[in-house]
């Protein structure tokens, strides 16, 4: 498995997707920073709170940009084996189909967490640059916990994207699916149903904004169930499908 993981990392050498994903994830904190600066310029009497800045950045990164960006990364990792005709080589080496999926899943986890860490770092940097109110080590650490938890939860929610990519062998369908989920996030956000929809439940759990109608366990179950169903369906489908 270590060798497979090494191979997966090597496949990314000189790949543009690494840079694109870094730029993509950085856009969330950057847009929030610009928005905060404009707000402050318009109403200098109302200072921008550091906690608000972190909360809004979290919303942008994990409810809007993250879903789409991590889906693109997922689609890239799996779909390139079809488009570059490399799957036939890997599977006849031979690599077991389960190992193949797991090695990519581990890489995806590392990648997602690295991007999340980068997003947090750059958010801290922008917060310091903007000299927002109420910045403290405790705030940074709380945000770190929220970000990392959300990043891991979004990684867990990548398994349906894997399934869609394996089913359609096409980036476009996965991206359309991710856009649909993002739209659903926007529709659900703020309502009690956000505790049930796995992708909005990520924020509900991270920020602890649970709803009395649905206890926290519902949110955890919705994420874990989505992960398990997505993973099992992906493995079953991939194991039993001909490589044409």
């Amino acid at each position, binding site marked *: 498995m270590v060798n497979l993981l090494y*191979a997966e990392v*090597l496949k990314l050498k000189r790949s543009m997707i690494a840079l694109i994903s870094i730029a993509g994830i950085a856009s969330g904190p950057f847009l929030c920073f610009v928005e905060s600066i404009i707000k402050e310029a318009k109403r200098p009497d109302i200072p921008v709170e550091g906690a608000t800045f972190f909360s809004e950045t979290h919303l942008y990164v994990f409810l809007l940009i993250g879903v789409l960006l991590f889906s693109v990364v997922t689609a890239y990792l799996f779909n390139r084996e079809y488009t570059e*005709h490399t799957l*036939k*080589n*890997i*599977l006849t*080496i*031979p690599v077991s189909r389960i190992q193949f999926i797991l090695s990519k899943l581990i890489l995806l986890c590392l990648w997602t967490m690295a991007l999340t860490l980068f997003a947090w770092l750059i958010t801290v940097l922008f917060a310091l640059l903007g000299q927002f109110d109420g910045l403290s080590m405790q705030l940074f650490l709380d945000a770190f916990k929220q970000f990392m938890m959300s990043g891991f939860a979004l990684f867990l929610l990548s398994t349906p994207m894997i399934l869609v990519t394996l089913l359609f062998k096409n980036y476009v369908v996965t991206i359309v699916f991710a856009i649909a989920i993002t739209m659903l996030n926007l529709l659900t956000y703020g309502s009690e149903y956000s505790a049930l929809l796995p992708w909005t439940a990520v924020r509900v759990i991270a920020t602890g904004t649970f709803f009395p109608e649905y206890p926290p366990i519902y949110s955890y179950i919705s994420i874990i169930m989505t992960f398990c169903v997505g993973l099992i369906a992906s493995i079953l489908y991939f194991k039993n499908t001909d490589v044409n």
Partner: protein
Amino acid sequence: MSAVIKTTNLTKQYSNQQLAVDHLNLTVRQGEIYGFLGRNGAGKTTTIKMLLNLIKPSYGQIEIFGENLFKKQREILRRIGSIVEIPGFYENLTARENLLINTKVMGVHKKNAIDEALEIVGLQHETKKLIRSYSLGMKQRLGIARALLHYPELLILDEPTNGLDPIGIKEMRNLIKTLARERNMTILLSSHILSEIEQIADTLGIIHKGKLLKEIPFEKLRKQNRRYLEFQVSNENRAAMLLERYFAITDYEVHEAGTIRVYSHIGQQGLLNKVFVEHGIEVTKIVLSEDNLEDYFSTLIGEASIG
């Protein structure tokens, strides 16, 4: 010679009821180059993909190295090198990096395995180029290098000359011959071009519409399908003696009583006839056989010729 590949009633039926491979019984013997010939869409690639466990058969058995493929898949596949259709590579990596992925995953520990494989296919000076700047011919050769990395006993090559120019085809042919000879490999080679198979294969398998129509050693086939002059004569023994004495012809056979087939001197039937007649042999019929391999295949598949 023992069988390296043996399929029994191998069948693949897709969901649309189309039979891509139909009860195929194929035997590839150790050390031979097996030419798997068929028109586009005949079922060659589907068969090869089943041999490599990329496609699951609907029915039938596959034995490779005497073991059931479905029971000992990993052990068997480790002993095989293959190219299926277009050899795929990670375009953002160099040739060496692409091969490094294979050596890592396969657990090939020999230090110079990559250099050795690249040298065999003549790509030792192109290792720093990214794959996206490789020509199709270079990719095909790199595909062979990748297939050879782990010193396989069996090489399965699906249309390895596809897209190559005439020089590339010749180079690939020589490479395959060298591998078979120097490494004593068993090679299954598929193609839709008869002349390509004819020049290197020891045994020929012809597949058409998913069925294996014929499996025959090339030597036997050539003999069956050589052009010849057939004379119907009053005394075949005397005619044979005259052929040897006057023309030094030894490549002939008495086909049946009164009929003699001459496999050389095509076009000199007049001269031969003259000698027969001058020596009192009555010639009642002269036939110039137009049979050749292409015609044989056309007849066999009942359609226009292959290649």
